[in-house]
């Protein structure tokens, strides 16, 4: 006799642990693959899962098996032209598969093993290179913070949320409504009794009946409960996401000849991290890409990272453009302004003091935070020295020299600390 069982609602995700084990075991390969994916993504497009492929040879499960060579008999179906004694050439790429169902369950002959990483897993791998403190990682990966906000009253809740005034108000209303009918009847009965008494028939049967009726009605009115569970009202609170304002993020990148692919890649991570941070704090974020060599230009993201130009560097051109854009499009009263600048530190000698002035006088007063990274510069250049003076003068400015990805985080340390507090 068969038993039918509906298991659809039980035991989902039984393989989750095994999946975690798999990811842990191949974290080196996955991290490498994830890093490649990150370079292919847009700055604003980090928070989603991704298809990852890693070389399948790294993850084979070996068993003893026969190698090529020796003598093998193979039986195959679908003969068309052969007769016994025929001699045929070996097919290209080896026969290989004659009795090949003894091998691994799958994946043989496939060089890549591809699978999907979920958003959380992907972020985890993204963070690994950046050496972020755990607390910060958690903040970034978490859903936006929420605030408890009042949202009217509900009829169910826990006792500590009981709203006394509201409950009493309801009780009054209910008492009025429930007692209205009997009271009306009572009033009429009393009037009728009054009339009888006036007529001198106070001792008649009719009056007696009325008196009984009045007594009954009075007890009915009295029986209406003062406070009923029906009346109870509780204060209601709901979660409201806190980011409710808007921000604009300026990405400033030096695209002069000395910025090669590696440097740009580091710069990209730097921008991504700032963007990620902003998404946790603001509902709407605009990103403005400004690249510069001797002149600055606002571009879209593709052009930002991909085109490369040569020539000298005038950093102030970018700052100038940024200021113009802020004034034209992002009034600081309604926008939170963040900026991230990446450069190899090269600048035209006379331009650096001008950059400092621009920053101190017109840009920093408008922005929330300005982060500067100098990527793989051998010796600090003039721009660095000028910026050090800016840093001394302003709390909103952070700077860092970066050799590897791990160095990025300190730039944002201040920023995240604020957030934590």
């Amino acid at each position, binding site marked *: 006799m068969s038993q039918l069982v509906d298991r659809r609602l039980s035991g989902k995700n039984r393989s989750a642990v095994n999946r975690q084990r798999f990811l*842990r075991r191949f974290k080196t390969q996955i991290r490498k693959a994830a890093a490649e994916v990150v370079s292919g993504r847009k700055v604003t497009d980090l928070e989603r899962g991704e298809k990852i492929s890693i070389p399948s040879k790294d993850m084979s499960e070996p068993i003893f098996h026969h190698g090529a*060579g020796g003598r093998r008999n193979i*039986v195959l*179906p679908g003969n068309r032209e052969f*007769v016994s004694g025929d001699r045929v050439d070996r097919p290209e790429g080896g*026969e290989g598969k004659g009795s090949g169902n003894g091998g691994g369950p799958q994946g043989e002959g496939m060089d890549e093993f591809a699978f999907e990483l979920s958003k959380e897993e992907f972020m985890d791998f993204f963070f690994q290179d950046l050496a972020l403190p755990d607390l910060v990682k958690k903040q970034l990966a978490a859903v936006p913070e929420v605030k408890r906000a009042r949202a009217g009253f509900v009829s169910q809740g826990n006792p500590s949320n009981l709203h006394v005034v509201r409950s009493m108000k309801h009780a009054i209303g209910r008492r009025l409504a429930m007692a209205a009918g009997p009271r009306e009847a009572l009033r009429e009965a009393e009037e009728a009794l009054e009339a009888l008494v006036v007529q001198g028939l106070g001792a008649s049967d009719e009056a007696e009946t009325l008196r009984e009726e009045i007594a009954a009605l009075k007890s009915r009115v009295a029986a209406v409960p003062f406070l009923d569970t029906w009346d109870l009202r509780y204060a209601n609170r709901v979660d409201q996401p806190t980011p409710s304002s808007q921000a604009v993020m300026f990405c400033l990148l030096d695209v002069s000849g000395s910025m090669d692919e590696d440097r740009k890649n580091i710069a990209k991570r730097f921008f991504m991290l700032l963007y990620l941070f902003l998404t946790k704090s603001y509902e709407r974020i605009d990103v403005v890409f400004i690249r510069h060599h001797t002149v600055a230009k606002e571009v879209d993201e593709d052009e930002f990272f991909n085109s490369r130009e040569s020539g000298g560097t005038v950093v102030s051109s970018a700052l100038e453009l940024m200021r113009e854009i802020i004034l034209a499009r992002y009034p600081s009263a309604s926008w939170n302004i963040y900026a991230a600048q990446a450069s190899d530190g090269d600048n035209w000698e006379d331009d650096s003091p001008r950059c400092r002035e621009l920053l101190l006088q017109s840009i920093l007063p408008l922005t929330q935070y300005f982060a500067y990274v100098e990527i793989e510069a051998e010796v600090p250049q003039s721009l660095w020295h000028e910026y050090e003076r800016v840093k001394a003068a302003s709390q909103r400015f952070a700077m860092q020299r970066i050799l590897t990805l791990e160095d990025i985080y300190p730039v944002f340390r201040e920023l995240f600390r604020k957030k934590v507090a």
Partner: protein
Amino acid sequence: METETETAAAPVAQRQPLSEGSEWTFDLLDHYDHEIARVAAHYGLDTYPNQIEVITSEQMIDAYSSVGMPVGYHHWSYGKQFLSTQKGYQRGQMGLAYEIVINSSPCIAYLMEENTMTMQALVIAHAAYGHNSFFKGNYLFRTWTDAEGILDYLVFARHFIAECEQRHGEEAVEELLDSCHALMNHGVDRYKRPTKLSMIKEQARQEEREAYLQSQVNDLWRTVPVKAIAEVEKQERRYPPEPQENLLYFIEKNAPRLEPWQREIVRIVRKIAQYFYPQRQTQVMNEGWATFWHYTLLNHLYEEGKLTDGFMMEFLQSHTNVVYQPPYNSRHYSGINPYALGFAMFTDLRRICEHPTEEDRRWFPDLAGSDWVKTLDFAMRNFKDESFIAQYLSPKLIRDLKLFALVDDDSDDKLEVTAIHDDAGYRTVRQLLADQYNLGNREPNIQAYQVDVFGDRSLTLRHYMHDRRPLGESTPELLRHVARLWGYTVRIESVDPDGVTSEAGSSEAAPPP
């Protein structure tokens, strides 16, 4: 007279299909199961009780990735399996089958909620009656597996391994499991009978065994010199006295440096390997049997007028897909399809019984004209793939499938066709195809040959070559796994058919921690 008119009218007048649409409900499942059980009993299929579970596709992927074990311990390789199954399914490359059925009592069969009524009926017939009766009847399953004890044992294994992970760290357990998995195919007894598995007994005996085993091992490795053993005696006392084919068993009992818990894990992997061993030996028969019966049972119901034409169209379409055998030169060819070969053989066997030709009478004098239900039942009970093919592959089927045999010899620059589907070739093709299903030929024959008990404690494995075929390129890696289990140096020698021995590799053990 009366019965005659009744049967004649039945197909048209009394057509009363069980259902019309493609949607299934639990009531309908029950109804279909009932009908299929009735017909199965009519043909004398003897089954374990069935437990039919309806699951989601997600759960099906889960079930898939634990290689058919309803309760599995944790290991990354199952995660890998899960990811690749999931990907395959999401891309729609893989109709998430059909069927997972577990050789246990009650026999658990999974139905996926997305399937149509037709597919559910097909799976019920295939898994819950086809495979189930095979599990219960075939001699290999009867000898090697204990359907009643397996679920308990798997639960025990899972708990034990989880406990080891807590006590000794996930990494240590994972390493050990990796090594054991690598030797899984060499962890089966081919000739001895296994003992029964059961959780309670297993738990009770486990501690006892632990202490006992350790004392045994200690004894073997006792280094306190009792007396100077004469050199001659030293050389004569070889250990093991006979080469051992069950490497995991040998390691479990003799590896000098394994801790008791590690021995227990080796044992668990070995037991599970043993449990799956019959399935690896009866792929063609098992799938062929189940396919034959879903086909026969559903056709029977159709003839009774219980199934609609639409049902049959859908059923036949998926049935045809399952038993399709592409020719060797097709892009889709990936070995001989066990469903196709098995189904064709059982169908052919029935034909030989019911409508034998002159040729069949010559080849199968005992079978021709016999009761097909009995003959098939006998074949199912007493054979494995290798012997089943050697016994029952008929010339007609060789012609139908156009089978031919090739020899691929590395001392010859061309392949040679040794036999085709003609009078001269039938026996050769049949024998060679049977050999192809001999696990002993498919996998290298490796045995634990000698332990240097008085010297460096190294273990020597011997690979007895079959047709001069060498070991594959994964051998060095495998030797590292063996060395990890053994704790000392491990060597492997290949012995060719002329008895010449050559060293095929060796691996030092990691230094003691």
